[in-house]
């Protein structure tokens, strides 16, 4: 069973990839699509320029990106992330295992002054209308 909430990544070489499409299909017993992407990035010395989440029903969540052609000045002036990552969070109580929570999180890392911050956007796998963003000091 595949995820409802999937990632989309653009790299500095211009390529864009989607979870569970092309080389990044979810195939049983192989590395996860995200781990395959990490290997591809490492082997080719690429880096991520934008990271988003989407659903097949048309919902979309974007992090601030490293885009070189912003449509508005505000995007050009905004603080740019220096790193992106993706992770999934799962939580479960022992007395009600039907209430398992799974969230997909995309994370952008920022240097602000001497300090690092993470902006993460969480989307609920079961109900994609549930979405939260967090800013955490590292």
């Amino acid at each position, binding site marked *: 069973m595949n995820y409802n909430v999937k990632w989309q990544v653009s790299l500095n070489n211009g390529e864009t990839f989607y979870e569970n499409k092309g080389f990044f299909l979810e195939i*049983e017993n192989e590395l*996860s699509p995200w781990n395959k992407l990490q290997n591809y990035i490492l082997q080719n010395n690429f880096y991520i320029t934008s990271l988003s989440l989407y659903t097949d029903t048309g919902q979309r969540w974007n992090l601030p990106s490293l885009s070189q052609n912003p449509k508005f000045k505000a995007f050009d002036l905004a603080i740019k992330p220096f790193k992106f990552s993706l992770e999934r*969070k799962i939580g*479960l109580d*022992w007395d*009600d295992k039907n209430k398992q929570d799974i969230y997909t999180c995309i994370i952008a890392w920022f240097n602000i002054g001497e300090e690092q911050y993470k902006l993460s956007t969480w989307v609920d796998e079961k109900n994609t209308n549930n979405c939260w963003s967090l800013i955490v000091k590292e």
Partner: protein
Amino acid sequence: MASFTWYLQGTSPTTIGATDILQFAKATFDSPITITEYQDTTHVESSTGVDLSTGNSPKNSKYLTSSTVSIDGGSSEALSGVSTSNCPVKINFSHGTSVITYDAIFYSYDGTTTTVAPVGVTFQAAEQGDASWTNAEGSTSAVTIANHSTPATSHDYFLLVSASPESVGEKTDFSVRIELTYS
């Protein structure tokens, strides 16, 4: 997709099903624990009150001091020396593709708000290999579970658990939760 399976280990493991709970008891199933004492036995109880682990000789880890434990009624031993097979709780995390897991935590709470301690219960927990028990009540006091940094489709976590009533009566505002991150 990801899923958890919880087990109470013993001569054979008992799966803790969707609506089952772990029961902490004195000598036998359903026997109440004396206030301020810790449990002598651990069982899997169905939602209808049936002992599902009878016949499997379920493991029990009884808190003695902050760094010692009694396994299945045995003499005091160092918590850090307990083997995985002697840990009562095994939680398996499975995923269709290979992932790493990290930032895993395990704790009790009141069943409503994850930061709030369970009501009327003192709960201790430890991961196999830990030197000390953690008074794991509320998410901010959780046991930290070691990262699994090698990608795999199956990850097992072995835990020791012990509980003590602070008052008379069954404890209903008492749940236990695991959370982890994977990618």
